[in-house]
């Protein structure tokens, strides 16, 4: 079952990771300030906790899945160069294997 989850790609590029971190820190801090002021006004600390939890859920939805806005600056990898001569690298390994069997 776990292999299904591992095969879903969840990477972001570097600028996207920075953007995601700024987004969730900002959302949680704003919800904390709103929650603190609201709890102070109505005099119940439970509402402060609920508002911060709501901010946590919102930032989970915004930053955990890899949305396309986090993949706008992909790294430019070099194109794949195919190998030209595979044989000279394989032969010494074969001779080594034969010596070990004896």
């Amino acid at each position: 079952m776990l292999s299904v989850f591992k095969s879903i790609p969840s990477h972001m590029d570097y600028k996207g990771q920075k953007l995601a971190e700024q987004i969730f820190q900002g959302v949680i801090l704003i919800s904390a300030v709103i929650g603190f002021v609201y709890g102070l006004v109505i005099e119940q600390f439970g509402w402060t906790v609920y508002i911060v939890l709501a901010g946590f859920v919102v930032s989970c939805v915004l930053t955990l899945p890899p949305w396309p806005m986090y993949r706008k600056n992909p790294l430019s990898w070099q194109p794949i160069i195919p190998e030209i001569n595979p044989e000279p690298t394989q032969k010494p390994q074969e001779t080594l294997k034969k010596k070990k069997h004896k």
Partner: protein
Amino acid sequence: MNTVLSRANSLFAFSLSVMAALTFGCFVTTAFKDRRVPVDIHVSRVMLKNVDDFTGPRERSDLGFITFDLSPIFDWNVKQLFLYLSAEYTTKSNSLNQVVLWDKIVLRGENPKLNLRDMKSKYFFFDDGNGLRANKNITLSLSWNVVPNAGVLPLVGGSGQVSLPFPETYETTRSY
């Protein structure tokens, strides 16, 4: 922050730190508040007995009449209040005695204006020795312990007190 798990880890740790800072802020906003409230106590009957199987204990059946209003104490940092009525007196053997006669737990959300009539003492008023007979001055005072959501637990005394003298003789049990 490349995988979902590492993003979830940093998000969760950040929100826990923010929650801890908010709880500290909640404590700071109510730490220096004065939690005393005027209290009115009346006592209607006092009875004194001497029971043999314990060194000079007394039993007191005291019909009290207490009114007070505790709603200014309940703010957003108070979870419950623990009230207790204590009697304080001096005897020849001990210079200060304090005995708790009655207590009550008041939760947040219950009616804070308490008007208690005809309350009997919940616990026995035993004395360590024979010091209650003909004691001139016994002071009853109501105090409470504030249980907060975050921070210290202050012990506050109410501002009303009642002093009364105890009778000179024991109650004699009638034999038929």
